[in-house]
């Protein structure tokens, strides 16, 4: 999708930037992966499709690129993460050329497998909001990742160049993923049992944290020695503490991209926790991270006249 546009623009941009961070096809079918394009002859590797889940904003923080002028392909989530990084002083706006891409959502390989069995790339054709499987046209909605089905912002809020046309619908309204509401409806005990069961699987590999574009602490609380917050033993309670702790650190900063969930090698629906926190912030403070760069994040703002009613 949009490949010709992306490649043509990248060739132009490479005159002024050190590299273009985008996606190339991966080494396995149904996978695209982050790709740093630094030579004009390599732009043919650049692709965009429904498997470009990795949030590229994460790569702006790696030491090599941090101070350099870089172009970056940005879906809505990537652009929101970049906005937060700029606001938090992690990257400089003037160093970035943001190539925005309206996003119809990322496809979950496992959902494809469940429906179609062992997958053959040649059986599929991909379109913006649909797919063709052996000649049959199907809506893409049911095959999207859970966080994409819950998405409220398919269009990048910040960009220098925009590829393609803006998405004209709100994915959440169209695909109606109500996992969060469902979890709200069940009893506290059931909810606890659900999360306890999920976090028991956690092996604390930190793939969630390391793929998150906004988890950039030099020393994560999970590995801190002084104070020693977290045991090295991946017990269910310590795992829960890690994930709850991480969600709270992300409160009002998480852009709901689902990178954590996508990265998890043991299939924990990790994004439910931070996304629930963002729902609460949306409801209570009318705030969403990375949408409006000038709007103050409510939980990161100090005011002397704060009524502080919650402190008893």
């Amino acid at each position, binding site marked *: 999708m949009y490949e010709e546009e992306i490649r043509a623009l990248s060739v132009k941009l490479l005159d002024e930037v050190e590299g273009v961070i985008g996606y190339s096809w991966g080494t*396995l079918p149904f996978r695209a992966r982050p790709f740093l394009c630094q030579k004009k002859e390599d732009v043919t590797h650049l692709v965009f499709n429904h498997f470009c889940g990795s949030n590229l904003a994460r790569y702006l923080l790696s030491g090599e690129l941090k101070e350099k002028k870089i172009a970056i392909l940005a879906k809505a989530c990537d652009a929101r993460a970049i906005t937060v990084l700029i606001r938090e002083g992690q990257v400089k706006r003037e160093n970035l050329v943001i190539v925005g891409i309206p996003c119809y959502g990322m496809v979950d390989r496992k959902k494809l497998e469940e429906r179609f069995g062992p997958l053959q790339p040649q059986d599929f054709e991909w379109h913006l909001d649909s797919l063709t499987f052996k000649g049959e046209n199907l809506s893409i909605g049911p095959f999207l990742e859970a966080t994409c089905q819950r998405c409220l912002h398919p269009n990048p809020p910040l960009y220098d160049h925009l590829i393609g046309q803006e998405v004209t619908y709100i994915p959440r309204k169209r695909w109606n993923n109500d996992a969060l509401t469902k979890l709200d409806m069940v009893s506290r005990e059931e909810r606890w049992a659900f999360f306890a069961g999920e976090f028991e699987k956690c092996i604390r590999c930190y793939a969630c944290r390391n*793929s998150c574009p906004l988890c950039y602490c030099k020393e994560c609380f999970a*590995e801190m020695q002084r104070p020693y917050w977290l045991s090295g033993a*991946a017990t269910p309670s310590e795992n829960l503490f890690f994930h709850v702790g991480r969600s709270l650190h992300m409160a009002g900063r998480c852009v709901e991209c689902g990178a954590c969930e996508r*990265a998890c090698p043991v299939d924990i629906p990790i994004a439910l926790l931070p996304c629930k926190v963002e729902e609460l912030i949306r409801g209570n403070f009318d705030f969403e991270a990375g949408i409006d760069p000038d709007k103050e994040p409510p939980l990161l703002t100090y005011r002397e006249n704060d009524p502080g009613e919650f402190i008893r």
Partner: protein
Amino acid sequence: MAKKLVTPEVFRKKVADQSDLFLITERAQGVYHEFLPQGLRVIKTPKELIFPEWEGVYRFSFQDRSWKVWEIETGDFSPRFLFLLPCEARAVIEVLDGNFLQKDYIDKNYWQRRKNLHLIVLGCYTIPKTCFCSLVGGNPLWRDGRSLFVLPFQGELYVENDETMLFGEGKSVDAREEETLATREEELKASLPPPLPSDFPQKLYAHFDEGIWKDLSWRCINCGACTFLCPTCYCFDLSVEGRLRGLTLKTWDSCMFPRFTLHASSHNPRPTGKERVRQRVMHKFSYLPLREGYYGCVGCGICREICPVNWDIRETVERMAKYLG
């Protein structure tokens, strides 16, 4: 070596009747589900049974004004049988046993868990798409010659080394069948990509300082998913928990984490992703072969399957092999 043929019905029934005795790895389940009953306990990787994610190695406490330390016995496990693929068996027998059962220092907890875990190697009759075992000297029918081995053959299951008649008496394998089996095994091996050149470990080591490592490591986000789910990765941490009473824990650790080599002085000999990725590749494909004579990778491909950014060890190794000529 005892060899026999068992019908799939008998095989399934024998396993179902003693299902508490059996475990199976997720990958073996993927290949053999049609031959096995539902409901066996499925594990991610064999190492979690013998080298668990975390375990206490000794306790300490302050009582009656003095400190005491005492070891934590893992207890004697009753014998269990683990169905696993040839690459996973190789990871246990060559690499994990090689590290934890080295003659000079035997890890007692590992030994206690390992001695009652019997491996049943399930030959790969279809080859999962992410594997590359032949590159690192394995093959889809690799076995150590002593462990139980199972392979579908002419509508039945061919079984080796079933000394305790776990799967029943079966019927003997005649000379013609043996020949067919051997031919098929040779054909299968011949159809696979050839192993890495024998001087690959030396050559790789000689290219420690190459700029290519920066390029190869760019994509990696330095999480520990690959190392934690790798069947051979055995690196661990020892940490102390508790103040006046507590225990010393042995937990999985990963060369991907900055803290892995961080000195108390805050100096870090592997300060960035480049050094850490290089360490992972070198340890598996150069250091272990140079030291111990075996690769630290069995080509199972689980790391390729689960990597969040498709950082691909097969691609890397093949690229290096090409680069080194």
